[in-house]
């Protein structure tokens, strides 16, 4: 099960996921991600602090947001990755490609 919410804080959009971000749930949240991408060059913080499990489909969604928004001069920061998702990010060396922050507050600094 996955829930998501989008909030605005300052000049940034915060996309918060809660639950399992996987092959079963990604289709449910893809429209919300696509709407963010359609807005173009915006700053997005993906709050992963409540994501309990992620799989390759969930990672692909984050990568897609990062690449497609980046191509429109947007910026994506990822916050609060922990537990199993942190390990998957570590396996895939995503810390070398994505801007990872321990918390949303940290991610918003200087954004």
């Amino acid at each position, binding site marked *: 099960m996955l829930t998501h919410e989008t909030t605005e804080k300052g000049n940034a959009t915060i996309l918060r996921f809660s639950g399992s971000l*996987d*092959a*079963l749930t990604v289709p449910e949240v893809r429209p919300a991600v696509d709407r963010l991408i359609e807005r173009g060059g915006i700053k997005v913080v993906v709050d992963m602090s409540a994501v309990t*499990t992620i*799989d*390759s*489909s969930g*990672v*692909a969604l984050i*990568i897609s947001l*990062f*690449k497609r928004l980046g191509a429109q001069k947007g910026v994506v920061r990822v916050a609060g990755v922990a*537990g*199993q998702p*942190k*390990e*998957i990010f*570590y*396996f*895939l*060396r*995503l810390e070398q*490609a*994505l801007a990872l922050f321990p918390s949303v507050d940290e991610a918003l600094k200087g954004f």
Partner: protein
Amino acid sequence: MALSFTACVPGELRFRDLVGTMVREVCRRVERDAGCEGLEWRVVSAYNEAFNNIVEHAYAAGHGEVEVLLRVDEATDRLVLRLVDHGAGFDFGTSGAVEAPPVDALSDGGMGLFIIRQSMTEVQYERREDRNHLTMTKRLSECAAPGRALHGDGRC
């Protein structure tokens, strides 16, 4: 202690967590009894990716069942997780990166097999009697004692 179960579910994503919950609970129990940690994350990650691959690739052109066998044996220091389907086969030897692929090259399929290989000690694929047998083994002694840092060499 030896513990095992087998289950058979339709090869559809909505049934993945039905068995996944059992896999998770067994791993939690082993973690607790054996005093290790990290087993659950790795085995569940491998299970999810293996099930996803069956649904998305083996059964892409049709439907079928997925048989799941999990066996834990502390005497042999092994957790064995096997998924069997009778969908389309694939070239396991050339599928999925062995090294972490660059972000630009990340794709669902290759990423899934890479995660399986990273999560487990040994992974074997066989095409036998028109069935795909994916056998994933984890050595229990690889799991860190509680309190030890998980990250360092990528192993628990």
